[in-house]
C-alpha cells in the first residue's frame, strides 16, 4: 500500500520532533511557591500576563502530575529536604526553573539559614534573575526553557550537580532514543 492511497492529508516528521513539540507545549508547573517570588509567579499565571498562552496555566498541586518545578523564592535549610523530596516525586521528564536571586544564589541573604543556590539540591535548567523577577522575566525564562526542550535531547539527563542543562547533553543518533528512555537511571550521562 502506498501513501497515495490515503484519502486525507498528512505530514511527515520524525518522532523525536513530535515528542519534543508535544512536551514543549504542555509543560505543567508544580505549585512550589516559597516567598515573594511566588506572588510574581501567581501574577504571571493570572489574567494580565496569562501563562495559558503557553499551555502552562494548570499549576498542579501534586508533583506527580507536574513537569516543571519553578522554585520561586528563597530555600531555607529546613525546606531543602522537602524541596528535594518534591523534586524526586515528579515524573521524568522534569525541568527546574530557579526564579529569583534567592533561589539562584542566596541573593542578599548570605547567612546561616538560606541554601546558597538551589542548584546545590536539584539540577537547574534556567535561572531567572531579579528580585523579584517580574512576570515578564519569568515568561522569558519559560520561553528559554521551551526552546531548550525543543532543541535538546529527548532522553533525559540524570544528574544532581549544578547547572546541567538539556542543551549540553551530547546529541546521540535519533535511532532508538525512545527505547533508551527505559535504560536504568544509574547510567549517568555526564555533561561536559
Amino acid at each position: 500500500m502506498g501513501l497515495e492511497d490515503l484519502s486525507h492529508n498528512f505530514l511527515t516528521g520524525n518522532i523525536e520532533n513530535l515528542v519534543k513539540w508535544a512536551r514543549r507545549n504542555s509543560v505543567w508547573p508544580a505549585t512550589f511557591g516559597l516567598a515573594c517570588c511566588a506572588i510574581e509567579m501567581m501574577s504571571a499565571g493570572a489574567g494580565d500576563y496569562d501563562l495559558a498562552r503557553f499551555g502552562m496555566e494548570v499549576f498542579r498541586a501534586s508533583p506527580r502530575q507536574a513537569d516543571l518545578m519553578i522554585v520561586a523564592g528563597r530555600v531555607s535549610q529546613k525546606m531543602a529536604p522537602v524541596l528535594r523530596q518534591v523534586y524526586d516525586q515528579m515524573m521524568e521528564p522534569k525541568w527546574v526553573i530557579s526564579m529569583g536571586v534567592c533561589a539562584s544564589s542566596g541573593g542578599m541573604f548570605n547567612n546561616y539559614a538560606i541554601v546558597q543556590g538551589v542548584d546545590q539540591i536539584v539540577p537547574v535548567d534556567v535561572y531567572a534573575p531579579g528580585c523579584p523577577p517580574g512576570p515578564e522575566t519569568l515568561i522569558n525564562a519559560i520561553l528559554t526553557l521551551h526552546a531548550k526542550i525543543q532543541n535538546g535531547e529527548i532522553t533525559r539527563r540524570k544528574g544532581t550537580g549544578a547547572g546541567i542543562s538539556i542543551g549540553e547533553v551530547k546529541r546521540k543518533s535519533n535511532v532508538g532514543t525512545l527505547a533508551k528512555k527505559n535504560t536504568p537511571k544509574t547510567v549517568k550521562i555526564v555533561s561536559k
Partner: protein
Amino acid sequence: MTARSSSKFIKRFRSSPLDESTATGLVGETSEGTQEMKTRNETNRVELEREEGQLTVLPEGIVLDHGDMDIEISEDETMIINMGPQHPSTHGVLRLMMELKGETVLRTKPVIGYLHTGMEKTAEGLTYVQGSTNVTRMDYLAPLHNELVFSLATEKLLGVEIPPRATWIRMLMVELNRISSHLMWMATNGMDVGSTSMMIYGFRERELVLSFFEKVTGLRMNHNFIRPGGVAADLPDGWYDDVSAIIDTIPGRLDEYGEMLTGQPIFRERTEGVGILTQEQAISLSASGPVLRSTGVAWDLRKDIPYLAYDEVEFDVIIGSIGDTFDRFAVRLSEISESLRIVRQILEKMPSGPYRVQDKKITPPPRKRIDESMEALIHHFKLFTEGIHVPEGEAYVAVESPRGELGCYLVSDGSAKPYRMHIRAPSFVNLQSLPAMLKGGLLADAVATISSVDPIMGEVDR
C-alpha cells in the same frame, strides 16, 4: 488481568531501581522531631489543651481548671494527618498537623520555619540606610508597611521629625499597599473556597495598584521606597491622575465582587459560622488586625495609637460580630473601601515641600548638588559607605499592617548598624489562633479558615 500477569506487566514496565542519589543523602528527611504533633499519650496536658484550642486564661480571668477539660479520647479512634509544607492551600510553606476523628478536627499544630531567612541576623550586619532593603522582604504583600515600621523606629531613635510631605506620601503608599494586599487576599481566599473568577479578578485589580507602585518606586514589590528620613523620591508627575484613576475604578468593582461572593449560597455556606474565634480568645492569643477586629474588638492602631497623620484623616474602624471566616472576609472587604476613603482625602491634602529630612547626616543630597559641591559629594559618600549614626537607645514602634500589629523593636549601640532588630510579625502571632478556630470543625473547612487568617509565611518565619 490476573494477579500473575499484572506482576509480569509491572516487572516489564517498571522503571529502573532508584539510583543512589535519590535513595540516600538529602532525601526523605523531612521529619521535624519534637516540633511535630505527637500522639496523645506522648503529649503533656497543657500542650494538649493548647492544640485543642482551649485556653484557661481569658481576659476576664481564669475560666477553666486544667482538670476540668475533657481531653480523654482513645487513640484508636483518631488519626494525625499532615498538611504541607508543600500544599496548594496553605499559602506558602505552612505545615499543619491535625488530629482527626473522622472528618472532625480535634487538635491542630502549625509547624513553621520552612522559610526562615535569618533576617533579624542579617539586619545586624546592614546599616540603617540598607536596613529597609532587608525588612521589605518580610511581608511581601505589604512591603511598604515593613519599611515604614523600620523607618519609624529608626527615626524615633534619631529623634527627627520628617517633613509633612514625606508623611503624606508614606500614608498614600501604605494605604494603597493595604488595598493591594487585601485584593490579593481576596484572590487567594476566593481560590481556596473554589471561586476561580475571584482569583483572576483580584489579580487584575492588584495590577492597577502595582503599576502605580512601579511608576513611583521603580519596582513592583520589595520597593525600598520608605527609608529612614523620608522617602526615596518624590511622587512622579501625573501621580494625581493615576491615583484618581485607581480610586475611581476600584469601588465599582468591589461592589461587583462583594455581590459575586456574598450573593451566592456556596460562598456563604462555606464561610458562615466556620472557624469561629471569640473576642476573649483573640485578645488572649494576642491576635491583631482583621482577625481581632472580626471578633468585635475595635482596635486599630491607626485610630488608637495614631502614627503618621492618621489623626488628620477620617475613616472608620470596621468590626465584625461573631468572628467567623465570613466576618474576616467582610472586614477586609470593607477595609478596602475605608482605605480608598483615606486615599481620597490624602489626594486633597497632600502638602508640598521637601520629601525627606534636610539633614545632610541622614539623607543624601540631591543629585544636582553632588555635581556642584565637594561637600555634598563627601556627605553622599559618607552616608552610603558608613551610614547614619544612631544614638544609643531602644524603641518599639508598631503600625497597623494589613495583617495586624506590625512592630519593630530596635536596639542601637550608637554605631551605624542596629545592634538588634526584632520584628513583631502579625501573621506569626495570628497563626496561634488556628487551633482554636479549627477545633471541632471539618477538615474541608480548614482550608477556608487558614486562608482567612491570611498568613504570609515570609513574615511568619522571617
